[in-house]
């Protein structure tokens, strides 16, 4: 049923429909509304889950690790400094192969303190072994939670997943959402069936010590499984689209890309504004298209290479910066297109909540067509 609601509340409702058995989270702007709503649902018996209140994010995800290892479907949510505090625990959750799902209401990292949006937080965890989904709008942000649990819990995968949606820009926006019914969610997402679990009668250990004879192979296995998850994501996305009509079978999605000469590549909510800008540029006969990256980990390298094989220029929009190198998305795109020789330029944009407008997208297209890029876009020179 279509309803108009705030992004955070839609995400909380989607999480409720996934029937998590244990939730542990620590409130932090702009994630707060999600966990407030879930706490209320648990208190009102609308959700039969254990809500573990903790003193910080390190403990929140640690509680999820324990609960997941004991065989529960678990959930957390965080952003920015909260995710940074979870750094160690994120690697542990993935290394123990626990299919925890966590929403990230993307926000910049301090210092200087910023509560506003960019994607530095989740991007900085790209090497942790978590799957990373990015939502363009709140419909996608809700739907990706159903998908994330299915993929994460698949016995051939068993890795945790981030569902990333831009803080404030999506989390605090009211817009219409088609929410799936409990009955339909139950059909799509069966009860969690743990592959292994802690059991006092049959003791096992998770995350034990690995000597140099074993550690290397553990990392190999995680990498192999993440890459293997591409097929599962596509298959599960196809099943979702058959059941509910919204197509998430591809990890990348083209918009007016078929005959494009210039392609913009982007992650998250910036794709919406970009599509509007593309429509206007198309009216001026500019052959511009968008490649939206829905899944950043595993990275769909082959899909990117295929989707962009015909273009002349690629402009990558990065709401993050690997300081001293480039934007993380641009590095992936350059890798994917290396043997094609197609020029790829990077534009660091919208850090710490700097607004991104259609005119900015158009300006970037003009820059890439003049072969100018690999820059911080829109710098205020007067404050430098």
């Amino acid at each position, binding site marked *: 049923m279509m309803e108009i609601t705030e992004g955070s509340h839609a995400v909380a409702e989607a999480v409720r429909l996934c029937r998590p058995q244990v939730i542990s989270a620590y409130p932090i702007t702009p994630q707060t509304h999600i966990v407030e709503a879930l706490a209320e649902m648990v208190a009102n018996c609308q959700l039969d889950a254990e809500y573990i209140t903790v003193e910080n994010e390190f403990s929140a995800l640690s509680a999820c690790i324990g609960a997941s290892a004991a065989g529960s479907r678990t959930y957390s949510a965080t952003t920015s400094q909260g995710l940074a505090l979870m750094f160690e625990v994120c690697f542990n959750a993935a290394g123990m192969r626990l299919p925890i799902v966590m929403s990230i209401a993307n926000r910049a990292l301090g210092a200087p303190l910023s509560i506003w949006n960019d994607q530095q937080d989740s991007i900085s965890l790209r090497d942790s072994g978590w799957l990373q989904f990015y939502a363009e709008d709140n419909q996608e942000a809700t739907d990706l939670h159903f998908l994330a649990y299915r993929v994460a819990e698949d016995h051939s995968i068993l890795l945790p997943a981030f569902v990333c949606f831009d803080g404030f820009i999506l989390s605090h926006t009211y817009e219409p959402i088609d929410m799936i019914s409990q009955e339909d969610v139950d059909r799509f997402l069966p009860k969690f069936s743990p592959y292994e679990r802690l059991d006092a009668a049959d003791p096992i250990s998770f995350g034990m010590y690995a000597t140099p004879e074993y550690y290397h192979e553990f990392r190999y296995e995680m990498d192999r499984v993440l890459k293997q998850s591409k097929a599962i994501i596509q298959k599960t996305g196809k099943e979702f689209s058959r059941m509910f009509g919204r197509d998430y079978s591809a990890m990348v999605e083209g918009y007016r890309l078929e005959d494009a000469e210039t392609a913009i590549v982007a992650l998250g909510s910036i794709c919406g504004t970009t599509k509007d800008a593309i429509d206007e540029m198309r009216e001026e006969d500019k052959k511009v298209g968008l490649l939206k990256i829905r899944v950043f980990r595993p990275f769909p390298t082959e899909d990117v290479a295929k989707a962009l094989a015909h273009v002349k220029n690629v402009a990558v929009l990065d709401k993050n910066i690997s300081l001293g190198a480039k934007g993380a998305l641009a590095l992936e795109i350059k890798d994917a297109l290396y043997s094609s020789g197609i020029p790829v330029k990077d534009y660091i944009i919208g850090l710490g909540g700097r607004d991104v407008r*259609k005119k900015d997208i158009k300006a970037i297209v003009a820059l890439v067509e003049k072969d100018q890029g690999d820059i911080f876009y829109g710098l205020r020179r007067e404050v430098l």
Partner: protein
Amino acid sequence: MRELRIHGRGGQGSVTAAELIAVAAFEGGVFAQAFPAFGVERRGAPVQAFVRFDDKIIRKRSQVYEPDYIIVQDSTLIKDVNVFQGVKKGGIVIVNTEKIPDYKVPEGVKLITIDATTIALKAIGLPITNTSLMGAFAAATGEIKFSALENALNHRFPKDLAIKNIEAARQAYNIVKGAA
């Protein structure tokens, strides 16, 4: 696409107004999007909130720079903030004030003033003007039906508070309709 920008001060309910206008617009069958100008919430500080209305899904995520409609909850903002910036020709500006305006809106823009503070004090007992201004917005623009606004308020607030706020909205609605 039509766009609304609401100027207020922290605590005046600008964000709530944007949300409820979007809810009411959606009930009327259009796509709507409401969001705040993401700031640090402080009482009294200038804040903004935005609403978009369209017949198709709204994809744009940037803030509103060229609004069709502007609501100013607190006329003392006019000297500090360029509240009329970017307003489109043919646009409508609604200002909460009891005074005769000593400022000018851009040419081709309609200015409606309403003493929402007095209405709110009488109907609600508090100088919370957002619901009166929603009523004025409904009457001035036709973007939302009064009945849809009523439903949105009933849904958001406890019953006694909803009744008072609906009364405030209705008074402002009638004043603006009567003046038109």
